[in-house]
């Protein structure tokens, strides 16, 4: 998000001037227009910050950072904790570095970004838009830059594609009159004023002739929308915002996990419901099949019942003589004999008493009866053998269908 000539501009592709550019009137609208999964890079209008060209006898970035902060504390009417600052190196030799420092009041930053904070869309990076515009200038030229930003006309002196002196003016009409004073101040500050190129925003095309006459150099028209600036190094994101952003990110991650867990839970419930529904359908389908086959079954069962009821009268396996034959065939030896046989219910129940010389033979008779395949339809129970006066063992066996 960056300031446009009269409002805010959203570059969705990631680069400031990418394929999808939209213009909105407020930052709140811009926040609502960006999808929640996209990171926001906010480029501030130049009047939100202070830019200063500085020269330090050091080249180490860490060391330079400390020097910049110290210098800003001396020059700015704010306490160190009330400002956020960063710098971008213009040129560096073995002994010294020339840089442009940017500083912004945290209070001012909070006020500008309140619409983003309200919608919990804190930016991932905060820069100055003028640094992006300057980055599009040729590095080997000192460029005087004029463009529209938020209804104001911004003039900037760019050295090696870095803005070293920036002013915002109320209207284009005031630019021509302010130029001599502006250049004099720049010269006094030791800034380069020998411009080899003037870049003018197409939105201020009426200034082309005056600027050309004033500088005596060619004036090229450009559109800040169509330049291709690289992201400047200077990041004005306050440390408290970083923490808040981390907290919001964690909160979003937890929310996402909860949503995922909820989706999985709901899916499991749906699957369980589907499983039960499928089971129900299977049971019902089987019930319908059973209903369809039941008349046939009644037919078969009626005939089966009749057959079974009459079988004692025609089935040789159920005849008394066959029962006696099978019982006799199960006697373990000739010394074991059946002393009584009772049959009732047309062969449905039988009771046998037998005598054997030993208890083991009596028990064996019972076991042989149970093992007899022809009598397998009976469930046999045998009593414990008891001994007769002649020391023979007597056993009673009952069998039921």
């Amino acid at each position, binding site marked *: 998000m960056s300031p446009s000539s009269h409002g805010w501009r959203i570059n969705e592709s990631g680069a400031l001037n990418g394929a999808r550019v939209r213009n909105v009137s407020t930052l709140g609208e811009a926040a609502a227009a960006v999808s929640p999964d996209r990171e926001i890079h906010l480029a501030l209008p130049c009047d939100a910050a202070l830019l200063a060209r500085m020269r330090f006898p050091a080249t180490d970035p860490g060391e330079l950072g400390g020097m910049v902060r110290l210098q800003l504390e001396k020059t700015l009417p704010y306490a160190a904790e009330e400002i956020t600052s960063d710098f971008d190196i213009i040129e560096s030799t073995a002994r010294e570095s020339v840089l442009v420092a940017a500083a912004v009041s945290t209070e001012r930053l909070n006020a500008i970004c309140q619409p983003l904070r309200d919608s919990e869309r804190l930016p991932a990076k905060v820069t100055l838009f003028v640094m992006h515009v300057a980055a599009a200038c040729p590095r080997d030229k000192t460029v005087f830059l004029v463009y529209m930003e938020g209804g104001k006309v911004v003039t900037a002196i760019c050295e090696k594609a870095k803005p070293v002196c920036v002013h915002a003016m109320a209207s284009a009409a005031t630019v021509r009159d302010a130029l001599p004073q502006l250049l004099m101040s720049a010269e006094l500050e030791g800034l380069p004023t020998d411009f080899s190129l003037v870049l003018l925003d197409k939105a201020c095309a009426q200034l082309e002739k005056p600027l050309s006459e004033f500088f005596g150099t060619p004036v090229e028209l450009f559109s800040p929308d169509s330049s291709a600036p690289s992201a400047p190094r200077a990041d004005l994101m306050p440390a408290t915002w970083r923490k808040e952003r981390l907290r919001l990110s964690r909160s979003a991650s937890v929310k996402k996990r909860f949503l995922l867990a909820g989706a999985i839970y709901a899916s499991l419930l749906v699957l*369980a419901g589907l499983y039960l529904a499928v089971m129900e359908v*299977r*049971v019902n389908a089987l019930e319908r099949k059973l209903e369809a*086959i039941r008349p046939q079954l009644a037919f078969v069962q009626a005939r089966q019942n009749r*057959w079974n*009821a*009459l079988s004692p009268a025609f089935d040789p396996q159920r005849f008394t003589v066959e029962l006696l034959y099978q019982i006799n065939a199960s006697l373990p030896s000739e010394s074991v004999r059946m002393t009584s046989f009772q*049959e009732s219910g047309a062969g449905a129940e039988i009771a046998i008493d037998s005598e054997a010389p030993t208890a083991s033979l009596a028990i064996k008779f019972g076991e042989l009866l149970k093992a007899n395949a022809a009598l397998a339809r009976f469930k046999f129970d045998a009593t414990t053998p008891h001994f007769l006066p002649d020391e023979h063992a007597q056993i009673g066996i009952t069998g039921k269908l």
Partner: protein
Amino acid sequence: MKEMIQKMTSRERWLAAIVAGVVFLFLNLFLLKLIFTKEAALQSDLRSKQLAWAALETLSSQKELWTKRDAWLQEKQPVLGSKEMAGVELLEQVRALAKKQDVAILNPTIGAFEETPFYEAAPITVETKSSWASLIRFLGALQTPDYFVAIESADLKTDPEDVTAMHGTFTIAKWYAPALTD
């Protein structure tokens, strides 16, 4: 809802989260119990119906067999001539067979006429005295598939004095086809 949560203190949020968690847990327990109970009932229902289906299929596949058997019964089961004479005729038949096999018939009685859905009969009760071999031959001759004679009850005992001799009491009936009713 969001505003309400934002108005809560940290402690209130924790308490609300715990209460929500407990409610969610109980709701889950209730749901799981419901699902598992329903699933067990359906599984049991499905199993019993599958067993019934397998049994029915077997029976259904035997329809032709049972039709043939029914036709055989229709053809072979004797038809009753006279209720009054049924018992007498059976007794005469039994006596003749017993005499042939050297089995003594004692105390014969003719029982009350029986009617069941599958047969009608006038059972007789006789006592017998014979050798084991004679009795076996007598019983073998008495019951053949074509006669439809059933021994409804039997009580056999060896003679305590002579183990080769058998005493028996039999209830014998000829199972006639039931009379056709309108």
